[in-house]
């Protein structure tokens, strides 16, 4: 029995050793470079966008930053599409691809990765239903997010998704798009038409008319209270029943459902009857069909430029961390005959069957996305002008889930994705939730530019997440880099690549190799004779990771 136990233990130890060894390989073999499907060539569209910006910069007299290096662009892509810095595994594969169009091919590959579909689904869900969990009985945010992820995976049309969301019918579990409607449920009082109208206009048309619920828009004479009420009326037939979301054209007394508004201080008897009406271009509104179907057709109508400009601005915001026009859902009215960057993106989006991937690729391949964040301007005012003109890549603070996603990814050599060890995935899930609770969530304001807070800095410096992910432990990157890199120079370089996606400068390399050197005797004889304290190299390695995790470069997209 004892022999069997010993054999078993040896076998288990060997397996653990192999797992660690395999997981710890720093020299990752390059995968085959991705290819681009013929129909996805969008060079001409990107050229139009670049041309617009070139003219814009000339007109503004903007000081245009130099192009960023490919690794920096790769980090931006990974942060915006996966919500984390690239793994050392991905960096190695990317660097092994030496073709000039490698960024384009990588974007295509990344758009087919489940990390992209899962991450973008969560971000889109925020714009559709916010972050509230809502009433569990009629609202399942998780189902909506899963549905969105499936749409992303299939490269579905945003136009079609929008129609489904607005006109969804059925159970919120069976028809996940219906959660867009049930999100507006009021306790014991049906659906909040105002909330649905305000959210629909903000999300799908990129404009804020919420204040017109009570009065005409104070700054925009084109939005009247009547416009808001007319739009809200399109949701008046929607109701929640045991069968899910349904449109009821007739009420309990078999009368036509009519949307009524009772003004403050007035009784129900004085309620005003509000017909469903759109604020402009009523010719786009179909004359037949359910109210929500008609509204969905009007919003997504091929000539409704607000629809395409809204999603183009949001996708720009997702890619840069900062929308082209701020706030993301307060766009000016489109001007007849004018073609700005949003219009160019929007037109290509339409031509690409309303696929979000078209917008993402155009933005990723544009000159603007490739600009460096380094600026040579002499004054703060000049830098502000550069930022305003988009002639330098903006510094944007990472979103909370990007911070923990990056900490977790940098703490491991290989990609953390659906193929990862289940234990690591469980650990990531738990870490993410705990971290977000402590770090704070941005809620609906995810594209609002904010600086960091002291509690966030304290959490990054002293919290258990940084401690766990920087320590030299069996499966951590710190351990594998320390033990499998050929020399200290490579240790520092690999650590920089894993955490900051760049190589260290000479000064940085020198500083940290010196630090690592203090962890070993100068020569073999010295170990016997020297009284110099020798530092624990595992501690030095942890300190190196701690330092990189707490650097501004780690916490900001640049």
């Amino acid at each position, binding site marked *: 029995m004892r022999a069997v136990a010993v054999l078993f233990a040896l076998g288990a130890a060997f397996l653990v050793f192999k797992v660690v060894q395999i997981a710890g390989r720093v020299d990752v073999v390059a995968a085959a470079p991705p290819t681009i499907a013929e129909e996805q060539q969008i060079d001409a569209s990107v050229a139009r966008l670049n041309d617009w910006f070139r003219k814009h910069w000339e007109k503004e007299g903007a000081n245009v930053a130099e192009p960023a290096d490919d690794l920096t662009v790769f980090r931006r892509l990974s942060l915006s599409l996966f919500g984390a810095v690239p793994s050392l595994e991905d960096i190695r594969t990317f660097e092994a691809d030496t073709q000039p169009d490698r960024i384009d091919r990588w974007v295509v590959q990344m758009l087919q990765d489940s990390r992209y579909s899962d991450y973008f689904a969560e971000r889109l869900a925020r714009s559709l239903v916010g972050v509230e969990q809502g009433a569990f009985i009629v609202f399942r945010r998780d189902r909506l997010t899963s549905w969105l992820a499936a749409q992303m995976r299939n490269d579905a049309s945003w136009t079609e998704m929008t129609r489904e969301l607005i006109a969804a019918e059925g159970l919120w579990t069976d028809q996940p798009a219906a959660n867009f409607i049930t999100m507006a449920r009021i*306790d014991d009082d049906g659906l909040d038409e105002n*909330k649905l109208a*305000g*959210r629909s206009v*903000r999300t799908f048309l990129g404009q*804020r008319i*919420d*204040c017109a619920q009570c009065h005409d828009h104070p*700054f925009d004479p084109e939005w009247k209270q009547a416009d808001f009420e007319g739009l809200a009326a399109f949701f008046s037939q929607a109701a929640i029943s045991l069968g899910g979301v349904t449109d009821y054209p007739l009420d309990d007394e078999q009368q036509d459902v009519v949307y009524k508004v009772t003004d403050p201080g007035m009784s129900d008897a004085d309620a005003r009857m509000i017909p469903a009406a759109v604020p402009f271009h009523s010719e786009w509104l179909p004359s037949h069909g359910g109210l929500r179907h008609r509204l969905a057709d009007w919003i997504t109508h091929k000539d409704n430029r607000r629809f395409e400009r809204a999603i183009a601005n949001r996708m720009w915001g997702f890619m840069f961390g900062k929308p082209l026009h*701020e*706030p993301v*859902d*307060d766009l000016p009215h489109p001007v007849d005959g004018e073609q700005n960057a949003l219009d160019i993106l929007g037109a290509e989006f339409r031509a690409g069957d309303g696929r979000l991937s078209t917008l993402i690729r155009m933005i990723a391949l544009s000159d603007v996305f490739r600009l460096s*964040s*380094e*600026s040579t*301007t002499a*004054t*703060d005012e000049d*830098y*502000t002008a550069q*930022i305003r003109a988009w002639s*330098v890549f*903006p*510094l944007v603070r990472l979103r909370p889930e990007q911070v923990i996603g990056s900490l977790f990814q940098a703490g491991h050599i290989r990609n953390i994705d659906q193929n990862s060890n289940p234990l690591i995935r469980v650990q990531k899930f738990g870490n993410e939730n705990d971290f977000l609770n*402590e770090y*704070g969530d941005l809620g*609906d*304001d995810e594209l*609002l530019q*904010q*600086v*960091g*807070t*002291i*509690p966030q*800095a*304290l959490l990054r*410096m*002293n*919290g258990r997440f940084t401690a766990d992910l920087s320590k030299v432990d069996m499966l951590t990157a710190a351990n594998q880099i320390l033990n499998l890199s050929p020399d200290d120079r490579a240790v520092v370089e690999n650590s920089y690549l894993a955490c*900051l996606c760049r190589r260290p400068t000479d*000064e*940085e390399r020198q*500083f*940290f190799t010196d*630090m690592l050197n203090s962890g070993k005797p100068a020569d073999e004889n010295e170990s016997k004779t020297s009284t110099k304290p020798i530092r624990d190299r595992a*501690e030095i390695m942890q*300190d*190196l990771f*701690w*330092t*990189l995790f*707490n*650097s*501004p*470069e780690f*916490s*900001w997209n*640049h």
Partner: protein
Amino acid sequence: MGSSYECFAFPRAPNMTSTNLVSRRTLMQFLSACGVSLALPGMSARAASRRREERPKSLITLWMNGGMSQLETWDPHPGTPSGGDVKDIVTTAKDIRLSEMLPQLAEQMASCLLIRSLTSKEGDHERGSMFVKTGYRPEPTLKYPTLGAIAAHELPDPRIEIPQHVALASDRIVPEGGYLGNQWDAFRVFNPGEDLANLSAEVSKERQADRLKGLSVVSRQFEQRRQFGAKATLHQNTLDRALEMMTSDQLKAFRIDDETSAVKTAYGNSSFGRGCLVARRLIEVGVRSVEVNLSGFDTHVSNHEGQFTQARILDPAISTLLKELRDRDLLDSTIVLCISEFGRTPQINPAGGRDHWPNWFSCMIAGGGFREGTVIGSTPHDILDGKTAAPKDPVLVPELYATIMAVMGIDPGKEIMTPIGRPMRFSDGKPSARLLKDDVASAIIRS
């Protein structure tokens, strides 16, 4: 203290690192030692000794989370259909009778103003909380700052090394900086009186020094080619402030182990009680605004028992807080506001509970020059179908907050340009003389 050069180094600039800088605290200690007067309170004995009108105003908000029942606390109606089983008791204020559930507080009522006629239109917890914490009804396109965040934003004290906006026994809804920015969100402490999370470096001083040295090398590389952009991130500034806080003596204000057991017992053995004690300590240091949260008022079932349970926690804590502030001559400079997101229905439901009732509710306010031993507003005695009834002499939340701001020296009409390009006033209300002592009102309202 080091060389004279170090002594007179510029105290702090956003783009300077903590490793090559004399800390603000060191500078202040040096100035103190040189006999330079500190006009504002800090942790130093001289500063902390400032009292009464010399001392800048601070705010303590006691947040009764879930919807405190006015009928079981501030506004009892015994013997009426809506009154339930609660009786009222006399207090040290001649005209105020209080619920029997608050016997200790009854002894403090001579120092308090009761408002029984607050009104709101928000009957949902989250929306109600946002309204009562900010004075503005929530809207989807703009987040308003809470009263505490405005106070911290408008009245910063450079001598305070710990956050000037603190939430103790915090719950899910954080007092936020809103459009002022998340750096004005309250610093949350979930278990007041216990060690603070994330405030100690996990390594020795030597290793921490090495880490910070390495950090300055990496940061320099990033900043040198992004001079203006990196400065605008305030990353280094935030880091420096966090490091400063980690080693600050003022952190002692968060601890209660040097308080006597008699004091701790007086506040009550509860998270809220310890929170009130920590609040008093924070105010003594000079922290501008503190919120202490007490959850559990959402009594849709068994209202009487539920409110009584909460009152047993509230009563000793708030009473001891008021007493201690007065004994230490801090009540004139500290506004204590006890408030909730809404009240509860006059009707008692079949489960013996009371539901949400924003139509009228109460709050208590003490200190800072507010009227004492006075009640404003009254509510109907026996309304069981009173949805259209209204309280007499209603007080609007914006009016209350504008008055608090004015007392603190903040202009409630000040406009701030919000991130969405819309100018907003801190409050839509006007300061109200009826809430203030006559001399304070004439000084503030006239000016």
